[in-house]
């Protein structure tokens, strides 16, 4: 089962390898991991997507808590959080497919952020399913490259 874990860490030297090392050392999987600064310059925020049964996820959050540099680790239950991902997709469609690509961009509320005679770079945000769907539709139209942030998550409400 997929889980999204939101982790606040002390912004110390080596903290990313402490977190990733805990996962690899104990045989847990990281599907995606995103790190960025927060309002407090001494604190960073990580969104980690992982999968495993309930016991595994319980161990993962406990093991995260055990790391000295981890301030909080919260396993979000479905519906408790808003999750979004940003993707940039490079497409090189044939001349007769360019209009179809633009239509898809519109449907998915994406943006063209770079254009050249032979290619587009499309920016799109959304849940993972949405980006997966868009990628599938663009694939036959000359999709060259996909760069994704992995999901970011924030709790709903206060």
């Amino acid at each position, binding site marked *: 089962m997929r889980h999204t874990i939101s982790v606040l860490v*002390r912004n110390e*030297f*080596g903290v990313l*390898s*402490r977190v990733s*090392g805990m996962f690899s*050392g104990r045989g847990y999987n990281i599907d995606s991991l995103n790190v960025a600064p927060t309002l407090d310059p001494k604190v960073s925020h990580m969104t980690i997507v992982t999968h495993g049964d309930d*016991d595994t996820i*319980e*161990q993962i959050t*406990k*093991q995260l*808590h*055990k790391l*000295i540099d*981890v*301030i*909080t680790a919260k396993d979000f239950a479905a519906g408790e959080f808003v999750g979004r991902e940003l993707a940039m997709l490079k497409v090189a469609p044939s001349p007769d497919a360019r209009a179809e690509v633009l239509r898809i961009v519109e449907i998915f509320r994406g943006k063209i952020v770079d254009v050249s005679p032979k290619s587009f770079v499309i920016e799109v945000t959304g849940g993972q399913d949405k980006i997966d769907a868009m990628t599938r539709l663009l694939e036959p139209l000359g999709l060259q490259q996909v760069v994704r942030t992995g999901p970011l998550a924030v709790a709903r409400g206060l």
Partner: protein
Amino acid sequence: MRLTGSEILIHALREEGVDVMFGHPGGAVLFIYDAIHKLGFRHILARHEQGAVHMADGYARASGRPGVALVTSGPALTNAITGIATAHSDSIPIVVFSGQVPTPAIGSDAFQEADNVGLTRPVTKHNYLVKDVRDLAYTIKEAFHIATTGRPGPVLVDIPKDVSNTPCEFHYPREIHLEHYRPRYEGHWGQVKKALALILQAERPVVYFGGGAILSGASAELRAFVETLGVPTTYTLMGIGGIPGDHPCSLGMLGMHGTYRANLAVDRCDVLIAIGARFDDRVTGKLDEFSRYSKKIHIDIDPTTIRKTVHVDIPIVGDVRNCLQKLLKLLADERGLERFQQRIRPWWAQIEAWNQEHPIAYEQRAEGELLPQFVIDKIYQMTHGEAVITTDVGQHQMWAAQYYHCKAPNNWITSGGLGTMGFGLPSAVGAQVARPGERVVCVAGDGSLLMTIQELVTAVEERLPVKVAIINNRYLGMVRQWQQLMYDNRISGSDLHVGPDWVKLAEAMGALGLRASRADEVEPVLEKAFAHPGPVLMDFQVRETENCYPMVPAGSPSAKMLFSDPVG
């Protein structure tokens, strides 16, 4: 006060109440060694960095205070890793200081450079690279705090050479700022009450405690708890000494080489009370058949140990001592105790019957080959179970656990989790430094001892009267035992018939060497060793093919034990 980084280190150690460190010098720590010399700090020179860390570890286990080791950069740190990992597996509070190349050279593949923090990350509770001398004092304060609180463990502080020689104003901080690191000491009252209610309903209860009981200093409370209840009690390898081994409530150790009654009791019990233990695979045997009929209570300060491998009905996160004090408070007003003790009487009778069936025993014939169990038994009798015992890893370690009925906590020093061969001698050196007037005996294996034998020189130099009893069977005995039982007796890589003359080796290193190969020689050799003021190596040439029983073969349910070599 303006001090260099090296001087800050020495002053900070004094502030922490540290009066000795174990180490080995080298390029990156020369300024620190200079400060040791100038400021007159007690330093014990190990002959290998692994030895230095095991000494700090043995010191910590014997004293209950953090041990300190100092090593230089690169290969010194990689040598130290075995020691650090050993302490990590057994949750021992040590602080290791390592030298690092000067900050401008970090990352340039400089001479004797290694990524010390990266290398030790998985085997420390926490570690630091101090890039600015102004952070040094605070970092040391935090390092000692983390090493000694919660579930203890090793902490490494890596100090670049330029930092150790840069001056700065020194104030030792009084406080630390770790708002998010708050180990939970207080057991939850509601959970404690629930636990006691479950215990008092039991018909077949068993207490199973581990190293956490020793680390939290809960021996008195533990003893009061099991005595008040009159409950059968077993312990892990790390728990030895938590209650006296010959205590009427003691079933002996459980697990792979535990007693039959302890393993059967845990297998058949209806309530299992796990205290400061972690359901290690050497204890549980086949996991899904472990203690199937029991409701389980688990007291531990580390939340990750709870439900890691075994399902627990009543978890209590907290310090073992704190939780036991709460249980004792409740027990003081408990009126159902007599009924409880009455009810578990048949259970005790059953346990006693199991003990009759398969006791821990050996038979030494006067003219027969010397048995290893006999040697341990003699050491036990002659020291009245009151010596500090350190061990290496293997058959001799298990025999020591079976036959040396340790009377007190912090007297049993063994590498339980990591199983580090070569741990015995250096940890005995550290233990003897911690407790100078006391009898320290290292029960060693002829395989293990050779891995750290150089530390005998340290014992000689420091005039530390450690007594090393080599259970010399000319094999890597435990490996040979497994090969005999599980690999059709193909002895592969475990034959040690080419080995040192231990008596001459002891003499070459400036120690006394003694030898015994017959049962009647054991006592005189031990008497001579104990009367000698310095370190002694005793070569006990025991029956080569003796195996350690009872035994739960790896992967078997813990109640299915072997009791002797298979016939044929």
